[in-house]
């Protein structure tokens, strides 16, 4: 009989005096494709990093790949977080840099990046087009890496993995940030490569899985439990709903009746048009869903509202009662808004603690550069308590599990009780329980008159309060609906 591909015995991992994995055992045989689940912070990512050799711990991990097989005898771990580098090998970029046009080209284009990758790994370029097509990436070949949206970066990372076809492929939240069509196509591509001999280990909270997934496991209290099917993976108990902190139950102060008004807004980079003839109005208290495929222009649209895009000055945009470019500073604009986005998270101050990260929301800065008074301190403490982050309070944000980091930045977003919340894929990295908890909080906050713009690719994971919808396709508005109801409500 063939040896198992992965054989794990008595694996024990400690993280800062806390046991994460305890005497864990796991056998992965040939032909098996696993889904690994468990709640946020249960050690899923740590476990797969151990298998990939990125972390080390006590115990035994044996990996037996087949050197005679036509696929490369490699284990590849695709992290849930993308990372790209400039031509000098640094990843020293900053928040919203992609919108500041500068001639000196510091990053590869998609094409030169793939060319380099293909040569390094001796890959067949004939296999690439099929993958690029399926993930709607063909037209991005000449784009600079820095200009890609977060969803497009995620896709590029997956394209490389699908092209390489390592014998063992570990995917950590591969569907995060992908639009519905891309998710469907990704599943099909994964099915394809699994028939060619790639084995998968996948961490994923979604229910729409590739059909090749045939084994299910869950980490619970540091051990691995094997489940018969997806349905029998234990469903997390519903969280007991707490009422929101008092200081957030007051109606936010509204600056004007019409918060955002855009008239024939156009954004382009050279020849490439990113937004075309956008007309949009958001009134105080309205709750908008903003959707569109990856690269449709959602983040660019939001950057115009948040004062992050230089081309806002050349367009007809009114924010909170003032014409853009009439002498306001971007900090005056940001003061009206609570924002979270994949980009904000990615470029957030690496030296900030959890407490500082939340408190920085008062000033819309990345990191805390001012001291805050007793009243504000108490509000930060209340939110830490609300999100059950007490044990992490003085830890650096960047060392927390991804889901917890998100909760911290969500707390930062609402701390000043802003009149407009912009939530660009806020629940990335949260488990189902956390997502429901957070969406419930949003629903409750929004009853007080807060306006909301919500970007989410997953129809089943939206707050119930949404009433309006703007749909973008290739930079154009194709739907502008005033009476939108989430599927959840209809169901």
């Amino acid at each position, binding site marked *: 009989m063939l040896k198992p591909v992965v054989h794990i015995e008595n694996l024990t991992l400690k993280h800062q005096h806390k046991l994460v994995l305890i005497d864990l055992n796991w056998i992965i045989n040939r032909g098996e494709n696993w889904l690994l689940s468990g709640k946020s912070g249960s050690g899923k990512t740590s476990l797969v990093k151990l298998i990939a050799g990125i972390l080390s711990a006590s115990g035994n991990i044996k990996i037996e790949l087949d050197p005679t097989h036509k696929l490369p005898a490699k284990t590849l771990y695709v992290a849930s977080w993308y990372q790209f580098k400039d031509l*000098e*090998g*640094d*990843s*020293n970029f*900053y*928040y*919203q*840099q992609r919108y*500041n*046009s*500068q*001639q*000196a080209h510091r990053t590869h284009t998609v094409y030169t990046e793939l060319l380099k990758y293909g040569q390094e790994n001796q890959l067949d370029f004939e296999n690439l087009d099929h993958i690029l097509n399926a993930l709607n990436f063909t037209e991005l070949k000449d784009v600079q890496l820095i200009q890609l949206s977060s969803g497009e970066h995620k896709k590029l990372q997956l394209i490389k993995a699908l092209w390489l076809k390592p014998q063992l492929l570990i995917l950590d939240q591969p569907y995060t940030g992908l639009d519905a069509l891309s998710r469907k196509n990704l599943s099909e591509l994964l099915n394809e490569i699994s028939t060619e001999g790639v084995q998968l280990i996948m961490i994923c909270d979604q229910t729409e899985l590739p059909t090749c997934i045939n084994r299910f496991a869950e980490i619970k209290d540091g051990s691995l439990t094997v489940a018969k099917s997806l349905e029998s993976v234990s469903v997390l108990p519903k969280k007991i709903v707490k009422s929101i902190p008092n200081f957030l139950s007051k109606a936010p102060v509204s600056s004007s009746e019409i918060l955002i008004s855009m008239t024939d807004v156009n954004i382009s*980079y*050279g020849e490439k048009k990113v937004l075309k003839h956008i007309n949009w109005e958001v009134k105080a208290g309205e709750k908008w869903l903003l959707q569109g495929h990856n690269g449709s222009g959602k983040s660019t649209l939001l950057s115009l509202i948040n*004062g*992050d895009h*230089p*081309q806002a*000055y*050349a367009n007809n945009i009114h924010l909170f009662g003032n014409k853009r470019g009439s*002498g*306001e*500073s*971007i*900090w*005056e604009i940001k003061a009206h808004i609570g924002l979270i986005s994949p980009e904000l998270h990615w*470029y957030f*101050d*690496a*030296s900030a603690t959890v407490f500082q990260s939340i408190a*920085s929301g008062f*000033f*819309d*800065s*990345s*990191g*805390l*550069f001012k001291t805050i008074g007793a009243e504000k301190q108490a509000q930060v403490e209340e939110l830490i308590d609300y999100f059950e982050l007490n044990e992490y309070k003085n830890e650096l944000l960047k060392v927390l599990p991804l889901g917890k980091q998100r909760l911290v930045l969500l707390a930062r977003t609402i701390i000043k009780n802003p009149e407009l919340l912009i939530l660009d894929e806020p629940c990335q990295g949260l488990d189902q329980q956390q997502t429901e908890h957070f969406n419930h909080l949003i629903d409750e906050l929004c009853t007080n008159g807060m306006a909301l713009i919500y970007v989410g690719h997953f129809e089943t994971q939206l707050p119930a309060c949404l009433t309006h919808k703007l749909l973008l396709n290739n930079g154009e508005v194709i739907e502008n609906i005033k009476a939108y109801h989430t599927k959840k409500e209809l169901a």
Partner: protein
Amino acid sequence: MANYFNTLPLREKLNQLGVCDFMDSSEFLDGVNALKGKKLVIVGCGAQGLNQGLNLRDSGLNIAYALRKEAIEGKRDSWKNATDNNFTVGTYEELIPTADVVINLTPDKQHTSVVNAVMPLMKEGATLSYSHGFNIVEEGTQIRKDLTVIMVAPKCPGSEVRAEYVRGFGVPTLIAVHPENDPQGKGLAQAKAYCVGTGGHKAGVLKSSFVAEVKSDLMGEQTILCGLLQTGSILSFDKMVEKGIDAGYASKLVQYGVEVITEALKQGGITAMMDRLSNPAKIKAFEISEELKDIMRPLFQKHQDDIMSGEFSRIMMEDWANGDKNLLAWRAETGETAFEKTPAGDVKIGEQEYFDNYTLMVAFVRAGVELAFETMVQAGIKPESAYYESLHETPLIANTIARKKLFEMNRVISDTAEYGCYLFDQACKPLLADFMKKVDTDLVGKNFNDDKDGAVDNRTLIAVNEAIRSHQVEQIGSTLRKAMTAMKSIKTA
């Protein structure tokens, strides 16, 4: 044109060299108001020009770019930078006559021609802003008496000026008003407002003078910042190769080592850098840096003296007039050194290993920083100014070496810095010849602690620690660093 500094009586020389005031944040409460509604025109749209303009506009100010006709017609990078970000762009003739403030952010060497072109077009009572005082102080350019002349100089590369601003912070900035050109007394208020517009007021602002800025900036860049890093890097590399250390390893240690080592400097000064060494290595590094200081002191003094007398700028401007002959010859020479030609090896060097295996560079950095600082202070420059131009900027230059070695460092820094670096390196190498003969691989290339038992004499260690910590650059540094602790650390590859 006469060297401005040399036209001053001694009293006024000392007076202007001594302008140095670390400003309290309460001095910036008026925000950008002094420039609000005014028309600001930036000349030049390179890294500083573009990024400062982006910040100023995002602070609610009215910004446009004046470029030379050829740059506009040829759609050069500066034109693209400005138009792609939706700024108004025009020729000098189109934009300067209506400007309230003209901000000159062209390279130093173009200042004379830019100022000569711009000045006749400027309206009565407008303001001309510089980011470096060479043109005023060394070239002695006379500015029309109705114009106000200020300086706002962020002490970081342009991309960092932008990166820090968008995250709600800023970079340390130096401001000044030229005493010969402040007819309405509005210079300081405008310089402060400008500083708020770029975010600099959040990270610490030093009020200086044109004279103090130039004389300290020149000294810093040619001795510790570029000069000694260049000399030290090449000598270290050659020594390792001579002693049989793998060339790839040596190349990587030198290229990245100086950045890792000076990162500690940025966070906690010489003290933090020295504390990264083991006790025996620290004592050794202290001893050899004392020796290095004695050897190099006359050279540092000569550089400072030539800067003060105007001799340095005289010979450099001669070379400018001569088509940069010396400069270009030397630049080519740097490109041909063995260090430059040996690619960094594919070896992993841990963060601590950079300290343990490169004790020599720690000693070079301590010697160079302290000497530059001491020499400046002795020449009448105030400690705060001396700190910014020595210790503060060292990690920034080290970062350019890590990116692409010395050739790149010389390309990125100003021509003034490069010329000074050339003079220093030429003179310093022979000076250190005897010293380098004694250096072995325990100081560069191998772990200093290997085959040693780690024992030190308590009293020696206490005395060494005391000497390091009580140096004036450490005391002034700890105060100034508190104002900028929030600055992001440089990420290494």
